[in-house]
């Protein structure tokens, strides 16, 4: 199994899983609320916190579907490094989706704060999930 064959598998998992869809919907809704309440600082920061929690929660929840993929990859004879590559591609795809939505819907400072928040949260949770998965696999 090589990295090239991972890409169709990653895209298959990405589009078949509910989590990226949930992430996109949640981010769109949160962005709308942030722009609606941008003058109310406390609500804005609570919403940004919510987006960060969303990233953590959804990636954590994705563990179940990813576990089956990893087990499948191991059955197919994939090495740990290949699985790491898989996680990386998946993480980049998911985070990219989330941050693009934020950047498109929000402007200037809010977009920057959201971007940093979501990106950091996604990566942190992915690292946590990755550690767990590697142990599991």
């Amino acid at each position, binding site marked *: 199994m090589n990295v090239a064959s991972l890409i169709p598998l990653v895209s298959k998992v990405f589009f078949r899983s509910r989590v990226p869809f949930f992430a996109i919907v*949640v981010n769109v809704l949160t962005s709308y609320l942030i722009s609606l309440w941008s003058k109310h600082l406390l609500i804005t920061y609570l919403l940004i916190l919510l987006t960060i929690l969303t990233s953590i929660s959804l990636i954590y929840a994705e563990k179940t579907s990813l576990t089956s993929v990893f087990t499948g990859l191991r059955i197919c004879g994939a090495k740990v490094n290949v699985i790491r590559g898989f996680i990386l591609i998946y993480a980049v795809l998911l985070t990219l989706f989330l941050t693009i939505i934020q950047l498109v819907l929000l402007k200037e400072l809010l977009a920057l704060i959201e971007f940093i928040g979501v990106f950091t949260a996604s990566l942190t949770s992915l690292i946590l999930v990755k550690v767990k998965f590697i142990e599991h696999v």
Partner: protein
Amino acid sequence: MNEVLINALMYGVALVLTTYLLLRRVKLLIGRKVRVPKPQEAPKYTYSQVIALIKVVSIVLKTPATALSLSVILIILLISALSSGAVLASKTVTIEPTGKYLIIIELSENLPQLITHELNFKELRKMIRVVLEEPLNLRVGSETLVIYSVLGLDTDYGPLNVSRECYVGAKEFSSRLLKIRDKLVPIKYLGNFIYELRIVDGVTLLKPSFFLGSKPIFVPLENTLVTSFELANELLNASVPITYVIEFMSSEELNATVPLLLKYKEYISEFIIVHNDTLITYFGTPIPSTEGVVTSIISAAIASLIILPSTHAQISKIKEVEERLVIIGFPIWSLSLIALFAVISPLIMMGIVFFLITPLVFEPPSVFTSLISFVITALTVTAFSKIEVSKIYAQPEITPATHELTLVLSEGPHEVLSKVDTLLRRDEFFDVIKIDKYCRDDEGYLYGVLRFKKAWGLGANVEVMVSRVNDGYKVSISVKPWSIEEISDKYMELISKMVLSKVHGGLRV
């Protein structure tokens, strides 16, 4: 002398204490009867199932998914409460053009200084327009005048000359004198014209008792008193709300003042704005703004979307302990209910705690919007968790599922195994990952690994053994479904049945 007494007392106490301790020691050395505790009965496990249930909930509570769900719920409820943006309920009516820009505001007795000192309006009229719950009994000579509605005006108004007279709707009191404190005020008859007098088109001078539809209903004239502002104030001991009529030169001036007044909405019992030909009536009850309600509904949707994937992780955690629950004595059908209870109960507990605290901190509209969010989230999560739980804990159909089948056929092992091989390779539902065949004389063995085409990570292993029995051959078929994901027994048995029926049918035909 005192010192001697104190010393003697101290020595005495020390002596008594030492003697007591010595005696106790001696008693212990000699030995005394020791009551041997009766052997206690083993604790009855009456509540073991309740304890197990609590432990299941605690297992769920300890998962990071629960912590995330609870944090999300808390944040969502806070957002809903903060964004409620309480506004006063309002009604807009188009009236005849007045050419005026007015604010008619009724403030509670606690805040008269707001208008007179802080906001310092120039074009200001004030009046008392009240309908009393308890009657006001006024003495006119030897008779009593029962008053339920009082109108106090600061200036004369149309035919009402309140600076010198007061008006009552009872003819028998006309031309007599009403004694208010030390003043004697002549009484005049109040005619029906009072109902026609208006502050502005759409707002009657006399306060209606209530509305029947849009029609105002007034207190009967016999129980109505119209007098000057000062006298009304004295009569009612200044404990009534006061109505102010503030006139502005322009629409901009009026618009700039509205937010200043609405800041004190908790003291406002009536608030009317006249914009030339538009009359906007605000009611004293604060309600959540449209943005607030929209935010609370969207927040609930966000919370549901975040919590739903987490519930899957929580249910999987409960799945790990289901065998133990069955050993304790829980029936299999109750497992799905326990899982649902364990997932929902932390959310409900969180909601109860939140709604016990919020009324102390937030206004009713904020509590209302949070409640909307909570109810929507709780219902959505319960409904979807139920679906999720029913998928995982689905029981097989009543028809007993078979994983093994034995047939007696006339064909030999080579023919049978070739037929099975062809059947499996041509199957529309399964892909063949591997098939191993072995044939020797009258015996044969086939091992196949199949992958279900319609789902990822699901398949079955098939074993077919052929051996000689009397005149025919015994064919034993065994199917073991497998899945790399945690799916219900129902689906596993479905896979098993599909493979078995294929092989069985193919060999029979």
